[in-house]
């Protein structure tokens, strides 16, 4: 039996661009370039490494998002994933984390899986809650925030990993099926090769709508969201501070400033 790996990825506005809110207080995706979330590249990379170490494995890249989100799937396919699933539906606009986890969980179940691999968070919402929500919804072990991960024994095997927490480092272990998330410390993601980019164009991407997943429109979207952004204000630019050139007195001047602010 083949090890079925599903990697969840997100198409996000470029973090180095000028990101804004749209009028309905959702993320404005029109005025800034989008791309595969950098933190999800690590998930794709670890899925590829797990596949390379396994006898037989297949990687499906799953995303929920607008038409352009197909770019994120193509990027992952060009890195080496085998096929894609894109859930796209106009009723999804404005869906929050709870709703997104519902859509992802249904799509993962429909696709079939032994191992779900996620990044540690998205670079736009930065919540970092999706992997835990997926484990909860799917009713399988949560093996998250890993800086090292490995799978032994195929589809009925075990996943092991190292979680570097704030106060301790933990070695974790769970039986498959399971949901894992990996951090940016898990290993640099590979660049797509020219051959990979060409091959990706021929790889299948399945398009799904909410109906295909038996999800009602009122369970998702802006109206169905479990949270509501009531107000978004651009942070005022910081007022220009004092800048001095160090000509031997820089440290003294800085110490004077810090003392004035009662830091010393």
């Amino acid at each position, binding site marked *: 039996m083949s090890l079925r790996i599903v990697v969840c990825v997100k198409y996000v506005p470029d*973090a180095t661009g000028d990101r804004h809110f749209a009028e309905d207080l959702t993320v404005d995706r029109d005025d800034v370039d989008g791309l595969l979330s950098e933190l999800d590249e690590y998930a794709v990379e670890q899925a590829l490494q797990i596949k390379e170490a396994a006898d037989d494995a297949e990687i499906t890249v799953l995303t929920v998002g607008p038409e352009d989100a197909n770019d994120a799937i193509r990027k992952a396919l060009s890195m080496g994933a085998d096929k894609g699933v894109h859930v796209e539906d106009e009723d999804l606009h404005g869906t929050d984390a709870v709703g997104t986890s519902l859509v992802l969980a249904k799509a993962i179940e429909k696709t079939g899986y032994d191992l779900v691999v996620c990044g540690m968070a998205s670079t*736009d919402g930065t*919540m970092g809650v999706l992997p835990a929500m997926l484990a909860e919804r799917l009713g399988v072990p*949560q093996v998250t925030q890993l800086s090292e991960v490995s799978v032994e024994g195929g589809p009925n095997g075990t996943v092991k990993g190292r979680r570097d927490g704030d106060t301790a480092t933990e*070695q974790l272990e769970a*039986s498959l099926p399971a949901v894992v998330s990996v951090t940016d410390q898990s290993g640099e993601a590979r660049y797509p090769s020219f051959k990979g980019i060409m091959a990706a164009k021929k790889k299948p991407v399945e398009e799904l709508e909410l109906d295909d997943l038996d999800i009602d429109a009122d369970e998702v979207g802006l109206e169905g969201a479990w949270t509501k952004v009531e107000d978004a204000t651009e942070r005022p630019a910081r007022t220009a501070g004092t800048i001095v050139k160090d000509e031997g007195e820089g440290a003294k001047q800085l110490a004077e400033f810090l003392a004035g602010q009662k830091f010393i």
Partner: protein
Amino acid sequence: MAEVLVYVDHVDGSVRKPTLELLTLARRIGDPVAVSLGNGAADTAATLAEHGAVKVLTADAAEFADYLVAPKVDALQAAVESVSAAGSLAAVLLPSSAEGKEIGARLAIRIGSGIITDAVDLEAGDEGPVATQSVFAASYTTKSRITKGTPVITVKPNSAPVEPAAAAGAVEELAVTVADSSKGTKVVSRTPRESTGRPDLTEAAIVVSGGRGVNGAENFPVIEALADSLGAAVGASRAAVDAGWYPHTNQVGQTGKSVSPQLYIAAGISGAIQHRAGMQTSKTIVAINKDEEAPIFELVDYGVVGDLFNVVPALTDEVKTRKG
């Protein structure tokens, strides 16, 4: 008055500072009821009472340490059900640590609630608590609330002052049955992080960070010396961490820790968006950099254009002298 559940982050009974900040915020919304789990849970009660907990629900079972996250969700769910049955529950607050967010996420799904993470402020509102968040690398401030279920909100460290507010802090044992399905992820071993003796990065009032300009692991003691003179935590930019000069646990930025101290000192850090995302909400920002064009100078309250190897050691001496 409605009650607010506060999830207690503690290490063997010693309560971590973000939990005390949560109690300050919880008191704005209702009566704080603390939930303290695992080894040393009962030892947290006195500190929690001093900071406003009217009740402390405790549970200690081996499962909390032996399995990842899920048993704690079972316990928090039991607390939600017990408080809801007895009265009204206004919100569940957790610290915005990796684990706090994961517990909150699973709880939200289980009890059918929305979740807000990384709040930097919280106030009572007519339709439930209103959370302030800082988003898009801190270029926007949003106000949000939860529209379904009992609000589950995680709050970043340094979002509120720690305020003494004596309350009863009555200890009650919380009855928890850890489901078999919550024992899926075994914690095979746990190695506590070695203490540096410095304050925790996300909790510190002052942070001193070094970047590419530090130019090597062997030079980081220059940064550490300034940090120690100020009683500060040490941070590092992604460039410094990727180069292997300083541990990833100290990385400040989008893919590292997000800090909001009273004072942030950036030495040899240019101030790329990736770094700014993690420190832009600091109250006072100071930078030392050779390059006067460095974007970090757009953020500073005070900047010194100069060689950090001259300025930082001299500043360390100045601080020591002034502190006597």
